[in-house]
């Protein structure tokens, strides 16, 4: 029997790669491993599940059994990978099983970053990065009225907006001067903030949390400006760190993520990396669109047609119905300036290079209708 293509991880990266491979090759043996139940679900929907009335159970689109059938693949759920041996071309699981591979794909995702908080309730701070997290979070949300959210980036702001649907009062804390700081220039950040504030989100910018203490049935947050705040629940959304541990222990080159070239190949023969764990030619972009570009290219490569990944400019949608926002930030370090216009009911910020060509944008409110047109005018990212 020939060794299979072995995919570690069944998130959007792992499962979509398997689907793309099956579109091209019906018979190559496929094995997928996940430490969770390996449900197929849409991770972006975790941060608008409350408004759409979804639970962890109804967010599951397909079970591992159904995916195994559809993909004609072996799916090992609730199994933890503990080591990769690139010279023997095999992977070890915690229970002792050893899996051989022809090609190995690392689609291991990323871990939420934990702030170094002190206080006896620091371990009770939640983060939501998968379905199991969401189940815990929604159970704790029952009866909560005030929620503190640490981090005013995309995920923090989306959860804040979503909680309004449940009558919760969310307060967002972030040391940055304005929300979505990585996506929006200052004035657009202020406009975004005002839009969410009008809907009921409270922002405490320029402030970080230092510690969390238990206080009866609630929590007391100690803040960097010396003040305190009370909350029934504390949610952390301060960023993600690619899961590089398994690769690093196998002497595969890592940087911020698992380093790959344009063919998604890592430094070890027969090993590729995709999704949130990967750093593709220096870019780690934890979003669905880049994943779809990656899996289409890699599926071709693994079925015999070496294909480099290309990235068009890929705007990021911020799912905040209180103020719909879409942003395509300019490449880091690029010279240029933001030019703002104020169409009725919105804000358009265009980043122009010194020769006047667009290299990025942020569209808020009514201006989001220009997304397609403007995205097509941007240079490709890769």
């Amino acid at each position, binding site marked *: 029997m020939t060794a299979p293509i072995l995919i570690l991880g069944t998130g959007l990266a792992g499962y*979509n790669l398997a689907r793309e491979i099956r579109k091209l090759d019906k018979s190559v043996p496929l094995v997928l491993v996940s430490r969770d139940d390996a449900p197929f679900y849409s991770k972006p*929907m975790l941060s608008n599940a409350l408004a759409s009335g979804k639970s962890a159970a109804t967010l599951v689109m397909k079970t591992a059994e159904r995916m195994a059938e559809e993909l004609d693949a072996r799916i090992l759920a609730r199994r933890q990978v503990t080591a990769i041996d690139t010279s023997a071309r095999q992977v070890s699981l915690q229970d002792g099983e050893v899996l051989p591979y022809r090609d190995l794909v690392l689609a291991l995702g990323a871990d939420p970053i934990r702030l170094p908080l002190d206080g006896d309730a620091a371990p009770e701070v939640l983060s939501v990065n998968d379905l199991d997290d969401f189940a815990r979070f929604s159970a704790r949300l029952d009866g909560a009225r005030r929620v503190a959210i640490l981090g005013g980036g995309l995920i923090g702001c989306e959860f804040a907006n979503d909680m309004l649907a449940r009558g919760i009062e969310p307060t967002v804390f972030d040391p940055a001067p304005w929300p979505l700081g990585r996506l929006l220039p200052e004035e657009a950040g202020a406009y975004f903030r005002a839009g969410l504030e009008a809907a009921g989100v409270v922002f405490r910018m320029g402030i970080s949390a230092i510690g969390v203490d238990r206080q009866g049935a609630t929590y007391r947050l100690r803040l960097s400006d010396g003040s305190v705040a009370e909350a029934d629940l504390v949610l952390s959304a301060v960023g993600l760190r690619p899961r590089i541990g398994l690769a690093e222990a196998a002497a595969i080159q890592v940087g911020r993520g698992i380093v790959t070239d344009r063919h998604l190949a890592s430094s070890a023969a027969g090993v590729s990396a995709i999704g949130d764990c990967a750093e593709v030619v220096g870019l780690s972009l934890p979003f669905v669109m880049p994943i*779809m570009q990656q899996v289409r290219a890699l599926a071709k490569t693994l079925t015999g047609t070496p294909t480099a990944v290309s990235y068009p400019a890929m705007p990021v949608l911020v799912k905040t119905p209180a103020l719909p926002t879409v942003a395509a930030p300019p490449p880091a370090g690029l010279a240029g300036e933001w030019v703002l216009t104020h169409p009725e009911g919105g804000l358009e910020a265009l980043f122009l290079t010194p020769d006047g060509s667009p290299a990025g944008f942020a569209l808020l409110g009514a201006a989001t209708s220009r997304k397609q047109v403007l995205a097509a005018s941007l240079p490709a990212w890769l």
Partner: protein
Amino acid sequence: MKTFQCIVCGFIYDEAAGLPEEGLAPGTRWADIPDDWACPDCGVAKSDFEMVEI
């Protein structure tokens, strides 16, 4: 008129509303959208959408 949801990112295509920014007039049937059309939010193919009841 029916509604379809992208199973990867949750994007919803509502036949009644269409997607005027993308040249799909209100009332454009799912069946009449070309097969090479992709989800505007995440880029998955038309075949990866599923119908949802609303």
